[in-house]
């Protein structure tokens, strides 16, 4: 078993109203960042997992996202990185 550090992004599904992202985008426009087309605010989770391999760590994380870490109705997740600790 090796310990892996896995980073996951969970973001609101595209097309769903994201008032938090819109509020941040509006604030950035107020600051003069006129080029900001859109903002989506989500969660970044960092897990440390004991797994047999990198793909095992990835698969476990994917299951965790499906069952708890993301809501399949309203959110998408992406495993951003997996690295041995």
């Amino acid at each position, binding site marked *: 078993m090796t310990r892996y550090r896995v980073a996951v992004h969970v973001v*609101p599904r595209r097309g769903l*109203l994201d*008032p938090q992202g819109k509020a941040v985008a509006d604030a950035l426009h107020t600051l003069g960042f006129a080029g900001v087309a859109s903002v989506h605010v989500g969660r970044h989770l960092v897990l440390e997992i004991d797994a047999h391999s990198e793909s095992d760590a990835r698969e476990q994380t994917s299951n965790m996202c499906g069952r708890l*870490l993301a*809501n399949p*109705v309203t959110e998408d997740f992406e495993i951003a990185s997996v690295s041995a600790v």
Partner: protein
Amino acid sequence: MKFGIVTFPGSNGDYDAYQSVVEGLGEKAVYLWHKDHDLQHVDVVILPGGFSYGDYLRAGAIARFSPIMREVVAHAERGAPVLAICNGFQIACEAGLLPGALLRNASLKFVCAPVSLRVENASSNFTSAYGANQLITLPIAHGDGRYSADEETLDRLEGDGRVAFRYAPDALQAAESYNPNGSMRDIAGILNAGGNVLGMMPHPERAIDSVLGSADGLPIIESILHRVAA
């Protein structure tokens, strides 16, 4: 009739639910601790409002894995009634008892206010004591009440008469300001396919006596009594 009211860490509507059943209607009620595995032979389960597990991760996401929830899901699958209020509604959605999800209010503000609702289905187990299309007033108190689901689910809910309550303008309200959270199709409460689970963001248990500003919540519990006792 015996009601079971689940207390999760962070529930704050459990006592109000108890009072509405015991003081409001003179029925029996017990508290069910989230770590218990035993529903104590209750006829009706109430999932109360509050902030279970501090709303960590997502409202209701962690509470749905509480030991008692396995029994609550089995109770619902047997066709027995579950009334899921506010945070209870969020938990019921996370647990798959009801479709969809409750997202952050469109205004990003926590809203605590009486709201006007229209009874869309006055023949369900939970709403038969209301008149069809009756306008009622119930309090809301939530930050994550924007009901969301895909279009197909919304069409199915409407087609099958499973929208129990909608936010609706009362005589004094402007047409554009009556929906307090931006919920899709103004949905405030829905039924499951079997009609034995009602999830709603407004708080009927806080509107059981005119002294509290409204007694419009009492017919929900009366409806359950009529149907389940029948």
